[in-house]
């Protein structure tokens, strides 16, 4: 093969010679090595993912379950200054000053002996309150309720507890007075200081409100910028400068946006602290460059022949853009948007700076109410003292992952629905 000129009377390639065979063997070996390395890379990343998911789901699944104790409360014997009529007339007001907590503690002591009140969660009386609100007539008789158990019992029921709690649990379960059920309130209530009463809804709602603000600001601004830069802007040094700036903005660490939000939105514009509105604006600043970049790439991918054809039959520039270019680029833009939003959803640092790390015991009612957000809630719970918060933290991570997967699912659906091939 030393001479480059191919001669017509060249001898046929010697496939069986040792040199050739060795070369072929080397090529196959290189191929196999590459395939093995690629497979290894996939296995390693899949392994990490599987480890993360198994660890989180295993721990998190326990966070979604809750141990309950059976408690018989004899309301007439408790002598509460409360009548069924008063509750029926003014439900909330009638309860003020009534020591229902004490009545529940007494009932527990009577049923489970001394120290019985410590088997119950601090919020066990809330179950009794809700039972009274549901049906005020229970005040006239004795009722049996399933109330949340204390953290120590809850941990013992999921077999990892301290010896004393384990013994107490064994005794209770022997008598059939304890059960473990799905903790619905975890999905419907907000933050609490007691791990048996916490819920993720407050933080989830905060995150959803924040994401709504982010989307409504970042999407139109990002898409309009991308369209202008691609379709209208002249190519000169100024637009080059803008392009470089946008690329740089996409790479700025998120904490910087948090500081910006603190300085501009809170201290200059006096917007409310800890509010989803401010969180959303801050995250929109962070998400916008991602949308611009994804949008420009998607618009570049629309074939020029489509523009030419539309212009050729007399469409104006705006008609070309909105009737043809944008609908064809939309799948790419939406994918980029949702990836940017998913990143914003998992962002903690900027939210800490603008005060969305507060303890908020009621879910936010609107965009300006103080609120928490999912990643910040995970951070806060990981910092809690009580051991019961460990599994709740994992459960919150599971919820965050589920929301992220849902968002990615929407991205894939939209892409497949609107995608055009030509």
């Amino acid at each position, binding site marked *: 093969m030393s001479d480059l000129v191919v001669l017509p009377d060249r001898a046929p390639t010697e496939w069986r010679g040792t040199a050739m065979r060795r070369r072929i063997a080397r090529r196959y070996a290189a191929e196999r090595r590459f395939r093995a390395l690629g497979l290894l890379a996939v296995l390693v990343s899949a392994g990490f993912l599987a480890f993360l998911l198994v660890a989180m789901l295993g721990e998190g699944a326990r966070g979604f379950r809750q141990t309950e104790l059976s408690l018989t409360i004899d309301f007439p014997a408790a002598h509460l200054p409360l009548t069924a009529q008063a509750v029926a007339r003014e439900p*909330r*007001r009638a*309860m*003020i000053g009534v020591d229902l907590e004490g009545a529940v503690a007494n009932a527990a002591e009577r049923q489970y002996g001394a120290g019985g009140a410590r088997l119950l969660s*601090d919020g066990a009386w*809330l179950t009794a309150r809700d039972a009274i609100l549901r049906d005020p007539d229970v005040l006239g008789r004795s009722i049996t309720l399933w109330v949340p158990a204390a953290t120590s019992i809850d941990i013992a029921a999921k077999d990892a507890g*301290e010896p004393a709690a384990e013994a107490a649990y064994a005794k209770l379960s022997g008598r059939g007075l304890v059960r473990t059920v799905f903790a619905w309130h975890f999905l419907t209530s907000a933050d*609490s*200081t*007691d791990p048996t009463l916490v819920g993720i809804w407050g933080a989830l709602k905060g995150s959803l409100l924040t994401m709504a*603000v982010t*989307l*409504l*600001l970042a*999407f*139109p*601004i990002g*898409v*309009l910028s991308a369209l202008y830069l691609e379709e209208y802007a002249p190519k000169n040094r100024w637009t080059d400068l803008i392009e470089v700036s946008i690329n740089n903005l996409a790479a700025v660490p998120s904490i910087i946006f948090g500081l910006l939000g603190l300085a501009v939105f*809170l201290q200059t*514009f*006096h*917007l*409310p*602290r*800890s509010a989803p*509105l401010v969180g959303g*604006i801050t995250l929109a600043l962070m998400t916008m460059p991602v949308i611009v970049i994804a949008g420009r790439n998607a618009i570049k991918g629309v074939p020029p022949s489509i523009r030419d054809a539309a212009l050729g039959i007399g469409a104006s520039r705006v008609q070309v853009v*909105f*009737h043809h270019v*944008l*609908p064809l680029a*939309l799948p790419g833009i939406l994918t980029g948007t949702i990836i940017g939003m998913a990143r914003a959803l998992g962002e903690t640092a900027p939210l800490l700076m603008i*005060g969305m*790390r*507060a*303890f*908020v*015991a*009621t879910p936010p009612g609107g965009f*300006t109410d*103080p609120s928490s957000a999912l990643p910040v809630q995970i951070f806060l719970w*990981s*910092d*809690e*003292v*009580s*051991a019961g918060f460990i599994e709740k933290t994992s459960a919150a991570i599971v919820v965050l992952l589920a929301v992220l997967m849902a968002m990615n699912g929407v991205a894939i659906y939209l892409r497949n*629905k*609107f995608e055009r091939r030509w």
Partner: protein
Amino acid sequence: MRRKGPRALLATLLLTGVALSGCDMSDSAASRDQILAVGSSTVYPFTTAMAEMFPRKYPDFKAPIVESNGTGAGLKLFCGGIGARFPDIADASRRIKKSEFDDCRKNGVGEIVEIQIGIDGIAMAESVHGPHFATLSEADIYKALAADPYGRPNRARTWRDVNAALPPVPIQVYGPPPSSGTRDAFAELILTKGCESDPAMQALKKADADKQHAICTKIREDGLFIEAGENDNLIAQKLAANPQALGIFGYSFLEENTARLRGIPLQGVAPTYQTIASYRYPGARPLFIYVKGAHLNAVPGLREFVAEYAGSWNPGGYLDRRGLIASPDDVRAKTLAQARALVPLDPATVE
């Protein structure tokens, strides 16, 4: 037909986006109907517990918002001024300083009500699998952790270098960062006491107080004292991984984690509820909340919240069950009277 979907979606998003960005700026902080508390991460669990209980007892009010950002940062926010965007309550794991009080007054926050809610203890703790220190003295800790103990560079590498009676375990201590009130209290209660056990340092205090303060409270920066952030759980995990190391904790955390951690006695006194409540344990320190006088009438529920707080710190009470150590009876009676009458802090008593 197929192109109508994306266009309708797009139009909706664009329109609402423009509408929203138009109204953003006009909707600034109006008056607030929720109490806002900021400050110490040590007081945070107690204030959040109160915040949670408050709307259950008083259905007319919303639950207060509580942020944990450290005593110093909290007081800075608190002292920022008067109005809806400034907090009503500052949690503090030490008393307010003169400089902070002056800052408050400069910004128009003149009336501050100081309420001592209870006591916490600062404890050195080891993993239950640790070297099992029998006891430490303030001087041992000072010599092990100060940057320049008694003015000379710190060369101690093991606890035996500090005191021949201690085990030959390398010095390695995880503790809170300087922004933390726990760190301030640690420097004041333990390091300064250990430092002033040397008569020369007491003499220096009279001669050059600033220099003495630096020598007594500056912690070594050669890697043997490790700042571990405000997250106590993280420190506990590090101790489990490295049982030779020690950690600095508040007692309320220690009490909840007896399965993992063992508090090391200080001067032979173990950190327990009784020893801290009687101040016999040297690392005991009071915890405070500061309430803004000017907000008492403006923020609905603030008076009721303070009264409720004051009703919950008795032994066996709601906060006691959550790990707060009740103050001695006489202090409690005095602070209860203060909380009821909402007497402003006397500037002369602030140091």
